[in-house]
């Protein structure tokens, strides 16, 4: 009879790196994008860490505003461009509010990266259809730029992004410049393109994100992986459309939000059934989603 646990086992577990302790990072720049959705740029103080902090598109970090607390934030930059971590943060709660009040060059804490991220290795060789609604562009921008930086490893690349007005478009300059590129189809839509004096004219489409499907022809559905992220109403219509097109349920990837408090699968707050959003997610296939009754509310 062998005991399951020995002292050696406990000792080795007591010696591990403490995952609850953040690394010190510096807030190097704040770039206002849209109302209450700014892009925050961070660098680790330990220069070595800027090279070794390996992450995947779709992963998140736990961000500490010193003295205020910690919140999960998805990474918007791509691991293919090292040195700076970019996070598109929505001003929502205590911690993000405090972040908005931080002057540039302040210290913050970062730990992670956490979560599964997009299965980029499995997506290689496939066509990729990225569909974002509103603030859903934040985690998808990481995936988009990752694919662009490894362009020859992926097939056809389509981006569809819809918001209410041009003022709500995240990464607008960057995405608008992508529309001129020949190696992806970048389609942007707003529900209303109202203009006011001095406004940057809207050159994209007018309509819902699902209306953009009419502009892309001949999607090779069996070889395409769809990565989608947006508000609940967005999921309802986009999923309807994808299923109608015969997308297999495990070829649809969704990014979910829960209360990921510890990030390491212990605190319990983000549990859905036996899945932890912070460990098994935040990227789930639609098959996962429909098999967990608690998982999403449309």
């Amino acid at each position, binding site marked *: *009879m*062998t*005991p*399951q*646990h*020995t*002292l050696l086992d*406990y*000792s080795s*577990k*007591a010696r*591990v*790196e*403490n*995952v*609850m*302790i*953040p690394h*010190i990072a510096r807030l190097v720049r704040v770039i206002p994008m849209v109302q209450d959705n700014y892009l925050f740029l961070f660098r680790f*103080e330990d220069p070595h860490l800027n090279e070794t902090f390996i992450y995947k598109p779709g992963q998140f970090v736990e961000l*500490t505003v*010193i*003295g*205020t*607390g*910690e*919140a999960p934030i998805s990474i918007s930059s791509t691991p293919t461009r090292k040195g700076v971590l970019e996070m598109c943060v929505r001003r*929502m*709660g205590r*911690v*993000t509010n405090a972040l908005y009040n931080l002057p540039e060059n302040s*210290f913050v*804490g970062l730990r992670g990266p956490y979560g599964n991220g997009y299965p980029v290795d499995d997506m290689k060789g496939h066509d990729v259809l990225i569909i974002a609604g509103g603030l859903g562009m934040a985690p998808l921008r990481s995936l988009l730029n990752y694919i662009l930086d490894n362009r020859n490893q992926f097939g056809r690349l389509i981006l569809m992004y819809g918001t209410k007005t041009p003022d709500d478009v995240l990464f607008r300059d960057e995405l608008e410049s992508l529309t001129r590129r020949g190696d992806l189809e970048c389609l942007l839509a707003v529900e209303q393109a109202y203009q006011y004096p001095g406004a940057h004219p809207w050159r994209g489409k007018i309509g819902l994100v699902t209306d953009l499907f009419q502009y892309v022809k001949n999607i090779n559905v069996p070889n395409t992986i769809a990565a989608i992220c947006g508000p609940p109403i967005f999921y309802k219509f986009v999923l309807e459309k994808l299923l109608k097109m015969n997308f297999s349920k495990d070829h649809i990837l969704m990014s979910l*939000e*829960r*209360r990921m*408090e*510890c990030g*390491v*699968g*212990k*605190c*319990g*707050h983000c*549990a859905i*059934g*036996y899945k932890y959003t912070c*460990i098994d997610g935040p990227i789930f296939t639609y098959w996962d989603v429909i098999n967990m*009754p*608690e998982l999403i*509310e449309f």
Partner: protein
Amino acid sequence: MKILKLPKANFNKFLLGLNNYGEVHIPKKKSEETYVFAPMEDPSEVALEYLRTVIPPKKYFFKPKEALFKHSDGKNFIEHIEDVNKKLILFGLHPCDIHGLKILDIVFGTGYIDKYYFARRKNTLIIGLSCMPDEKCFCRSMGTDATEDGFDLFLSELKNSYLVTVGSSQGDDITNDMKDLLTEITRKDTNEYLKIRNERKKRFTLQLDISDLPYILELQRESEVWEDLGKKCLCCGSCSMVCPTCSCFNIYDKLSLDTKQTERVRQWDSCLFKDYAVVAGGHNFRANRADRVRNRYYHKQHGFVTQFGKPSCTGCGRCIQYCPTQIHVVEVFNKVRGED
């Protein structure tokens, strides 16, 4: 496996002798029905008759409230592990509580490792103690009524002595140090143990059939049992606090008044509390009481089983004893099974 005998006449000397290995904690009586694990001041305080303490031994490894790190100079986060060098001897754990720790070992040791938990687990010796069940014990149904491991020593009570099972090298050291108090076991002792064991088996009155339970729960997700339970549950969180396997926590920062020093604190939480699944912006993924209650039961007997192959319930009976509205976990599952 090494098994020795400790005559009851030597028991107090044995307890006192444990002081040589660290701070000895024992079950003590706090009121008519309330027992707690607490430091031993005198061997006479040990409540050998106890069945369950309010809080299980998890409190020694996963503390109700503890600082995780401190920050004061603008730059460094300084790791803080309370009691990291304290040698602890926990005496008197019943098999269900040893299984409770084995379950927490899985929770805190799978995937990312919780250093706080294991830093203290490493420095603790566990000395188990046999028991006779009451009407709230259903450990036998959960397969946690006996244990072959998870202890350094285990004491099985006979009429005039204890059988002492040695479960680790450190336990072996203790028995060697105290060899004057111990004797060899005889055939007669074995027979006496078997007699007591059979008597114990007959004493279990509460049973929970967990075969097929995850599947039944899958079918019964919309059962009215959960609505009814939501009407009865106060969501006071008592069951979570006293549960040997509940390990949810909350994290917050405690700031000093001069705003220069921060402490990151974690504190026990309960999935029954209203704010448990609230995300930034205010949406609550489990706003209804019934949903929260169901979630707790599903986690124990469905989620954990799917994840780790066994339920995260030890049948210790604490949630039955301490629920102020007398919610009875076995009755709930029997209802779900259509067997009430």
